[in-house]
């Protein structure tokens, strides 16, 4: 049987086996697979490195900003446990439901933007929600690919396979449409709105253009070459089964995955990594209201930090790299001046 035969359509995609064009295509197909693996690896490493870098920074001073979502019954007006008399003697309320209620509308529907910048929300929400749908689409492609490997046909004909089939089409189609509308609208704002004029860098234009290009290619591929996303699923299947030379079946699908791979590798290297660093902004800064009690973990970390040696050189600190935080914070100001005066 021809190695280029599609396992789905059972049609042979090479006109003549082992002709030079076929070999080139095979090499290119394998290269695209390798590129996709590499992009995924870059994504994972970049996220892990950034996460680790932030996570391993020392404890910081408190910088709460209210409302704090886990404050339970006080959260809706922005209250805190400091409203309690002798607050340190009372059990601290920590509402996980409250956190979810604070976080989910923000993550899914961009609540802050809705409240504070409605015109931008109408551009940014479709873009982001479209991307969420496309992430769902990619997840469904993966599930479909696994199902196929397990022998479950993913098609319009009944059962779980049909569910995956239709959900994939829905998520993909709406995902592409929404995110393209959003990305174009965002680019339009970048280029025309006086408010952001002067704050738009070449990288902004490039980033949005890259998104528009990738999404447009993805959408056109869907419309013109892969209306059920079976070719896209086939590519994911060849990725997960490490069949690097399995033909992709369409140049458009190959281009689509090339661009998606570039995006996957690129996004976590930029400020767009806020898709996960937002966690720190909320949980580790705004909502970090954990008090320091004697003998606590926080106290240990503070003690350690107070031991760091300091090199700030302003005259009132004169930190030469030998004194540590505790030394400077407990020394008398103008000690030398006073000693000098005493001698006189």
């Amino acid at each position, binding site marked *: 049987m021809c190695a280029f035969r599609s396992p789905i359509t059972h049609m042979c995609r090479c006109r003549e086996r082992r002709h030079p064009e076929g070999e080139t295509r095979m090499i290119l197909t394998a290269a695209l697979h390798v590129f996709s693996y590499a992009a995924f690896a870059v994504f994972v490493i970049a996220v892990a490195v950034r996460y680790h870098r932030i996570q391993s*920074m020392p404890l910081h001073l408190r910088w709460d*900003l209210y409302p704090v979502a886990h404050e339970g019954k006080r959260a809706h007006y922005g209250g*805190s446990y400091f*409203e309690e008399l002798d607050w340190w003697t009372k059990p601290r309320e920590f509402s996980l439901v409250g956190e979810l209620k604070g976080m989910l509308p923000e993550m899914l529907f961009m609540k802050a933007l809705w409240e504070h910048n409605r015109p931008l929300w109408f551009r940014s929400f479709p873009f982001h929600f479209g991307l969420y749908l496309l992430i769902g689409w990619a997840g469904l492609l993966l599930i479909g690919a696994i199902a196929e490997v397990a022998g479950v046909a993913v098609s319009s004909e009944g059962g779980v396979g049909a569910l995956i089939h239709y959900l994939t089409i829905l998520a993909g189609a709406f995902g592409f449409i929404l995110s393209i509308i959003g990305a174009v609208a965002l680019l339009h704002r970048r280029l025309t709105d006086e408010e952001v004029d002067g704050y738009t860098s070449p990288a902004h234009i490039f980033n949005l253009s890259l998104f528009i290009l990738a999404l447009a290619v993805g959408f056109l591929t869907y419309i013109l070459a892969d209306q059920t996303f079976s070719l896209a699923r086939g590519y994911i299947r060849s990725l997960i089964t490490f069949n690097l030379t399995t033909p992709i079946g369409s140049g458009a699908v190959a281009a689509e995955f090339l661009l998606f791979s570039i995006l996957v590798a690129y996004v976590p290297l930029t400020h767009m990594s806020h898709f996960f660093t937002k966690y720190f902004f909320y949980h580790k800064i705004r909502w970090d209201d954990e008090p320091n009690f004697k003998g606590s973990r926080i106290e240990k970390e503070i003690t350690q930090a107070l031991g760091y040696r300091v090199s700030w050189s302003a005259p009132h600190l004169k930190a030469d790299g030998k004194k540590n935080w505790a030394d400077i914070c407990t020394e008398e100001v103008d000690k030398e001046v006073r000693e000098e005066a005493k001698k006189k």
Partner: protein
Amino acid sequence: MKKTKKIKVEDIGKANGKLTHTDPKDFMPLPPPYDNPENLPPWDPLKNSDSVEASLDDTIAVAIPKPKSKQEEEELVKKFLSGLEKLFTKENNWPFLQLLTLTMEHCAKCQTCSDACHIFEASGRNEVYRPSYRSEVLRRIYNKYLKPGGKFFGRWKHGPIDLNWTTVSRLAELSYRCNICRRCAQTCPIGVDNALITHELRKLFSQELGIAARELHEKGSMLQLRVGSSTGMNPLVVKDNMEFIDEDMTEKTGMKIETPWDKVGADVLLIHNAGEIMAWPENPGAFAVILEAAGVSWTLSSDIPAYDGINYGLWYDDFQLARVAIKHAQAAKKLGVKKIVVGECGHSTKSLMVIADRVLTGDLNIPRESAMTFLEDIVFSGKLKLDPSRNDFPVTLHDPCNMVRLMGIVQPQRRILKYICPKFREMTPCGVNNYCCGGGSGFAIMSGYNFQTWRNHISGRRKLQQVLNAFSDDLSPETHKYLCAPCSNCKGQLRDLLFAYDAWEKCGILYGGLVELIVNAMSDVNPGFIEWEWH
């Protein structure tokens, strides 16, 4: 709206006159009676600024001396860069490293934060006062000069910038055009905090270059650490002044008042902002009346600087903050009190309760409480006899940013006011969404050159509008109205603001603290504690 060419971020480094001008014609309009230009205070122009840096706008807060040589210029830039580098090391900046790194790396430059800023809005959307303007300058400098490949990637990712004496000196001034109220941070869809950048910039200047607003450093935290108080009062003077206040209170209320000093084993160490003792003696006096009437075991400390709760380091220098906070805690430890209660001062409360919470360890970690919760307990305990009809005049409440948006102490003061003031009404917006009084981050005590004009016209404008709107049902001067500001710093700003606009004469608006209203409602003290006189 500005009709002139829009100022760009990179313009900060171009030395061609002033970067921007502040023209009263551009400022946000105010409601009656200040819709009539004749009722507005004049804009005092900037004078005598030849020897100091004054090229940012039409005022001066820091006053950096102009360089005498090229070498001096280069020295400043070099030191700035070395300070910037230190901001990103854990040894030198563990208290804010994580926060700063995140904020530097994730701004989407969407400008959602702009509309939240009262300074930007009141100035007529002056580009230089945009919350993200100064952050963007710093971001570009950091990316260009300190990141590998910054010459190319910095420009690609963020845009052009040039670092020179003009940039650095303007940036120093610009770090004192923000109240650090963090209202902008509340609206950022990502969580980026432009106020933090202001804070870190001020720190860099103070901790590395020894540059800070005089009122905050030399006449502020340094004076406090040397003498005991930024007011200049030493322990003897402060005791003397309090004695005078006790006598005055005894006469005024008919209750015998004697402030206890250095009482070992008292339950509560009360720490006032010492500015109250000097400028608003009725506030510490009213505290004494309430605590005596409620039978609280309390004391003041005469240790340097424990009779002055201010901690200006909060706004410009981590070390100065820690030095003062540690001394406050040491005084409490020496007296063996059960808790420290911080008087009506937002920044003192936040410094000692929140920021110093990760500075004080072991025996110095003594419980600390806000006066709002403490007073709420007393008011509703039944220990005071209260007659709300004595407060039968319109009252509104200003929410001090430090205590409310940044600590979540929202309701106790409201519950008190709703109980004792029948004509209480809220401002809009209020609570954690309030606007800063315009005196935040030290501005209230900064008046050099024409800076007071700047705060009266620009940073305080939004608050004035809010106050006028809250009392819009009757703005006649005959109806006495009370603007309650339970924060010494805010009161300083409101005093200057209302005075500049002649709001007592024109609209009958007086300002004051919360305890004065409580004592005014106490039926077993002589009536008329609030005297309805401008001071």
